[in-house]
């Protein structure tokens, strides 16, 4: 029974495809898979917008949406109708074709990234030999659509915002890649399903996830921070600073094109959280050995939603960084730390089993964190802010 429940989507696909003629079956499997993945992630997107506003409200001592349906649950539907019925304004001097293409390119590229995620046991749409590389390759091409949006608007604030966003994405891509490589080094493969398999198994009741090793913990934290910057989430959401910076590359977009940027941002957040779950948090594996009876896909989405919750939590807590702080943090703190972490991972790989490697690796990670942190803060004077009031 538990076995069947675990594989329910695989079995359902097989059953539905069995009605098709023989030569159509591969296409049937592909279409069903694409429809399924898109439906699940877009539903998650709708729920997350509600969850985010509700959670932010809770953390900031207010209600959040509470008018549409029970607990404001129909708010995403209302938002969707609003976006669809709004007038789609395009500036007269804008480059019409590029202006139209930019959100589409962004959404297509991000949806392609969803195809390689292993969302459960035997549940991966495209099992690539180098799936992780494919994911980062697609991530690199989102920058171009950001530029298209900013340039085609013929607005200097849009163009500046696009430049800012691209500089941020390029800078944070380096620690993102370097921290992902540490998981690849230990698993010895670039295929996401195989990285999940490498983290299977339990010692006692605890799982063998990479996050429970010194290098894995540091890698997961670096990956999480860089992922926030890649998806333009707070505290790196400079493109959304409409009050201070006139927003960013999507200032001149309205109506449903703006909604597409919004969807793409959230889908990008889901896909990058899914990759971090796959790399460091055991993918679809259960967190404790006696919980394996719960289907794998439930575990996967539970972990992804937990990470999304942390994103929302951070957004409610931290203020926005300034552009120079953003760049300094990426190049002077995250990059050296992720390089050191790469060395620690290699050390872990070659020191063999035993308790020594735990102490040595943990010591290197902690010492480098403290030294880099102190060095980065050496000219900063952290003290309670002094206020001067006009009498």
């Amino acid at each position, binding site marked *: 029974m538990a076995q069947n429940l675990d594989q329910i989507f695989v079995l359902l696909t097989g059953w539905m495809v069995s009605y098709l003629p023989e030569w159509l079956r591969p296409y049937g499997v592909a279409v069903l898979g694409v429809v399924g993945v898109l439906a699940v992630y877009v539903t998650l997107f709708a729920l997350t917008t509600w969850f985010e506003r509700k959670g932010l409200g809770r953390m900031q001592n207010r209600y959040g949406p509470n008018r549409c349906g029970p607990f404001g649950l129909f708010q995403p539907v209302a938002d969707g109708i609003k976006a669809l019925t709004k007038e789609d304004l395009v500036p007269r001097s804008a*480059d019409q074709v*590029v202006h139209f293409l930019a959100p589409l390119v962004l959404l297509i590229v991000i949806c392609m990234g969803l195809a390689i995620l292993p969302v459960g046991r035997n549940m991966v749409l495209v099992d690539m030999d180098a799936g992780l*590389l494919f994911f980062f390759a697609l991530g690199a091409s989102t920058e*171009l659509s950001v530029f298209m949006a900013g*340039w085609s608007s013929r607005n200097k604030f849009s163009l500046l915002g696009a430049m800012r966003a691209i500089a941020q994405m390029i800078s944070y891509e380096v620690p993102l890649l370097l921290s992902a490589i540490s998981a690849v080094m230990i698993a010895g493969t670039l295929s996401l399903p195989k990285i999940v398999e490498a983290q299977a198994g339990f010692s006692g009741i605890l799982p063998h996830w990479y996050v429970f090793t010194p290098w894995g913990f540091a890698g997961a934290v670096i990956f999480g921070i860089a992922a926030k910057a890649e998806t333009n989430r707070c505290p790196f959401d400079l493109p959304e600073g409409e009050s201070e910076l006139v927003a960013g590359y999507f200032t001149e977009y309205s109506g449903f094109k703006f909604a597409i940027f919004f969807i793409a941002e959230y889908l990008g957040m889901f896909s990058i959280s899914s990759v971090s779950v796959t790399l460091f948090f055991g993918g679809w594996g259960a967190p404790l050995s006696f919980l394996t009876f719960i289907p794998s896909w439930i575990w996967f989405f539970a972990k992804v939603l937990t990470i999304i919750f942390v994103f929302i939590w951070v957004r409610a807590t931290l203020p926005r960084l300034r552009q120079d702080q953003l760049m300094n943090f990426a190049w002077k703190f995250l990059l050296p730390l992720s390089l050191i972490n790469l060395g620690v991972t290699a050390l872990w790989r070659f020191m063999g089993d035993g308790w020594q490697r735990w102490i040595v690796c943990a010591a290197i990670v902690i010492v480098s964190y403290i030294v880099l942190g102190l060095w980065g803060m050496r000219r900063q004077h952290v003290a309670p802010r002094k206020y001067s009031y006009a009498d």
Partner: protein
Amino acid sequence: MSPVFYLLAAITIAGGLAAVLLKKLVHCALAAAAAFAGLALLFLSLDAQFAGFVQFLVYLGAVAILIVFAILLTRNAEEQDGGLFSRTWFAGLVVAAAVFAVIGWAVLRSGSVLPNQLAVPTATVRDIGVALMGRYVLPLEIVALLLTAATIGAVIVAMHEKEGEQ
């Protein structure tokens, strides 16, 4: 030759032609990026995964962005109006056709120089990694050193102005 091949070939060729013929430089750069993407997808459809991914990462992620930045930083964005195509489209087309002819000639001639290879080469990402880290490790390190030197040089060039002020 599947429909997918024709679709990708059409994207690549249209992107390449547009890159040569269009008037606005940014349009040309974006069209070149479309051609790069079509080429990457062609590599993927040929099962050359590594080549396809590197085409994406390097050409779309780095080269296209670099071209676009270079255009924006060096040129006045205001162009004179009039016409979709560049005035020198014929010269651009001739140069592109000449380069294509040379490369095509070289590829066609290579059949007689090189012995026939297996129809389906089995170079996985893993094999490429092992080769890079084993047999070709010295060239790889030299390239890495060169790139590091170039990066440091770029930083120094960018810093020069600030030092002059002090």
